[in-house]
């Protein structure tokens, strides 16, 4: 029965991960500007992808696979924010201004 628990847990993680990923995609479509979209992509995306890899780790029942899956999760968590940062920075430096709803823009002020 213990095996069954693993399977249920893994399946749930999988569906959750997939759902988060889809939400991230929806967020990227729905949110108003690059910076807000980035919140969705980096957080929900990383969590979604990470959860799916965790599901693999749980379901595989093979230590080697699990270790690799966890290393994969760590890698996703390592790279996602860096990529987001680089993209956000590049966009801002080249003139991508936040949407008009944005209440404060300290970078713009510091440059003035």
């Amino acid at each position: 029965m213990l095996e069954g628990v693993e399977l249920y847990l893994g399946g749930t993680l999988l569906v959750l991960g997939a759902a988060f990923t889809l939400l991230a995609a929806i967020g990227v479509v729905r949110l108003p500007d690059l910076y807000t979209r980035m919140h969705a992509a980096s957080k929900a995306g990383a969590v979604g992808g990470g959860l799916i890899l965790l599901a693999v780790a749980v379901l595989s029942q093979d230590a080697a696979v699990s270790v690799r899956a966890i290393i994969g999760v760590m890698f996703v968590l390592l790279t996602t924010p860096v990529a987001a940062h680089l993209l956000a920075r590049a966009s801002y430096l080249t003139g991508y201004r936040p949407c008009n709803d944005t209440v404060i823009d300290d970078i713009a002020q510091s440059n003035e």
Partner: protein
Amino acid sequence: MNTVIFRTLAPLIVAIMLVFSVYVTLRGHNEPGGGFIGGLIAAASIAVFGMAAGVSAVRRSLRFDPMAIAGFGVVLAGLSGLASLLTGSPFMTSIWLYLEFGPSIIPLSTPLFFDLGVFCVVFGTLSAIALSLESDREEDL
């Protein structure tokens, strides 16, 4: 791309990619992977490294001219094919040696060296292309 965050993390990312690439190469005979994919990942890591640290730093780290690595790969692959000349078999007939290290057995085979050759070629070539596209200086080519 000269940001603290990228510069700090890039070496770590690159190291992981390199390790992963060798792993993928060696595993290829039995699982998805192999020299080509391994070489591709390794070259990708060089590209990341190049973007983070600059081309000349990468070249210094590599020590060898990337295209020489590629040439070495072809020579290695060719030699692994020529090895069968010694056994009276046609070109590229595989030869398997099982080296015993205590409890573990390391299978050494000409296909393995062949795959390593593939790795070197892909890694060397793509690194050379990536670095030369990045580079502005003559001596880097």
